[in-house]
């Protein structure tokens, strides 16, 4: 079952179509990594799904309930979200912020439960410090603790790693994996830190200029990520001649002068042919495309 499903979802601001017929599927119990450049439409889709923004056309469903159905409001009680910035009352303490949210959520947590949540995000010692005196990272962590208050089945996190230090990022990563694996919480997460996303996401959605380019599972992605061979040589022109002679079509010259070969090639044959042309191989390594490479390769096809 998909907890979030969008159907030809569109959003227009003035004349600009910022979300363009998006059909997105967030499977239950997945960590859905939402990848896209700034202004690609990630946050807008999250806002649309959370009912903050009205779609221009198309629709979506949450837990199978269509957005026009009145039951959508009840279903949203199982959802929590941090969209862009943490929504906190700066003049109140962490505890008061939690009580305030409990009241409008219609839940009641004990002091121990509140403490437990704060401990989860390493804010157990904030005492009566007002939120306005928190650092950006502390606010982000408090927002995450508060997002867990209603024991959600689905969490939408828009750039949750913003403002966190490396240690905080690692802790958040562990927390999200734990929530997903132990408590079965489905997580839709967007982040610019693709290397971090790569460590937790089980499904990816790539978006650019308001268009969802591809949805792919983590396993599929790793199968598709192209393997490449990088060479550093002393004579680039002669090396290119050798590559042409060997019939290699898929290669590119990197900005630092390295040659990146995507075609399958016998390394022995390649080195021998280069040597015949007096091209010295200074460095050679094989690598696999990262999520970032894959995404950049994907958007090149669109732009």
């Amino acid at each position: 079952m998909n907890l979030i499903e969008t159907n030809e979802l569109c959003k227009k601001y003035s004349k600009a179509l910022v979300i363009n017929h998006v059909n997105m599927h967030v499977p239950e119990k997945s960590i859905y990594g939402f990848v896209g450049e700034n202004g690609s439409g990630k946050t807008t889709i999250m806002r649309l799904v959370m009912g903050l923004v009205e779609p221009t056309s198309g629709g979506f469903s949450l837990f199978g309930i269509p957005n026009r159905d009145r039951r959508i409001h009840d279903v949203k009680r199982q959802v929590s979200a941090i969209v862009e910035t943490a929504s906190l009352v700066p003049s109140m303490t962490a505890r008061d912020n939690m009580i305030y949210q409990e009241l409008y959520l219609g839940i009641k947590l004990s002091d121990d439960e509140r403490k437990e949540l704060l401990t989860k995000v390493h804010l157990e010692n904030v005492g009566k410090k007002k939120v306005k005196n928190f650092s950006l990272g502390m606010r982000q962590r408090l927002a995450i603790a508060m997002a867990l208050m209603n024991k959600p089945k689905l969490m939408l996190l828009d750039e949750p790693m913003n403002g966190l230090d490396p240690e905080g990022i690692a802790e958040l990563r562990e927390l999200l994996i734990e929530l997903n694996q132990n408590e079965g919480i489905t997580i839709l997460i967007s982040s610019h830190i693709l290397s971090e996303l790569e460590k937790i996401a089980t499904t990816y959605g790539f978006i650019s200029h308001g268009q969802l380019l591809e949805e792919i599972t983590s396993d599929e992605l790793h199968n598709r990520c192209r393997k490449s061979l990088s060479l550093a040589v002393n004579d680039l022109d002669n090396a290119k001649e050798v590559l042409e002679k060997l019939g290699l079509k898929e290669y590119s010259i990197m900005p630092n002068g390295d040659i990146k070969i995507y075609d399958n090639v016998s390394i022995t044959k390649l080195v021998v042919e280069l040597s015949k042309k007096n091209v010295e191989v200074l460095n050679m390594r094989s690598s696999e495309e990262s999520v970032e490479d894959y995404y950049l390769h994907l958007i090149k096809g669109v732009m």
Partner: protein
Amino acid sequence: MSRLFKAFMFKLRKDITFRVTLIVGASVAVFLTLLYLLLDYALFEGEEHVFLNGQSMLITSLSPTQNFGLAIPVNLITYTVLEFTQGSIRNKIISGHSKAKLYLSLYLNGLIFAFSLLIVYVLICFGLGSLIGGFDPEGSFIGGISSIAGGATTLGEGYILRILIIAVLVYAGIVAFTIFFASLFRNIGPSIPVVILVLIMCNLVSTFTSFPGIDEKFIWVMRIVNPLHALSATEVITTTTKDAYDNTIVNASVNMTNETFFSGIGSNIFYIFAFLFGGLVIFKHRDVK
């Protein structure tokens, strides 16, 4: 809705700005009392409480455009705009509250916010005025220059009740109007000048109707169009009676005519619903960032 209300009450209890505003309101009330006391001493050597008495302080303190009156919408704008800028509205929508319920709760919360401040201010003014000057002393100064010109020194029967009913409706309208602009602009900058300007203009126009020789048609239009008219207009009603020797005795008192009272109720109810409904429709269709 009850969840939103409980959350609002909790936030209000914790809100330092609200507490400070309450203290400011109480201080303004005490200051106003002292000012009127000084005025009585300066003009009548304290022998008569023409300015400082219960009924005059009650009527003065109900004015939405004088003294503390303007501070109420200004503070309400600040409170409402913060609901948007701090992301509380966003969180409430995310947690499943419909936009319609949210807007209505903003209005109901606004009523509690405004009336808490107003009641504290009015009660202190009225209480101190009655305590020092008595409720209704002989020759009290009611309604300003026009009542003096009309020779009225007493209040007509039921006037206080009418003023209170109109004041409740006027403030309920001001709350609807304030919430409308605060949630439309979602920014303190333009909201405060617009609300203050409109209130001052309404008050200014309503004072024109007290001018001698003003066209009756203009007064009628104002009764219907201007929601502050009934609260600001001072009408001197004269009645004549004959004494035992068949002499005609003219009695003049400050009162509110039925026309002014009922058109005041009508126009204020209209504005409450117009701003509430208009705000609701706009809020439902506008995006929340």
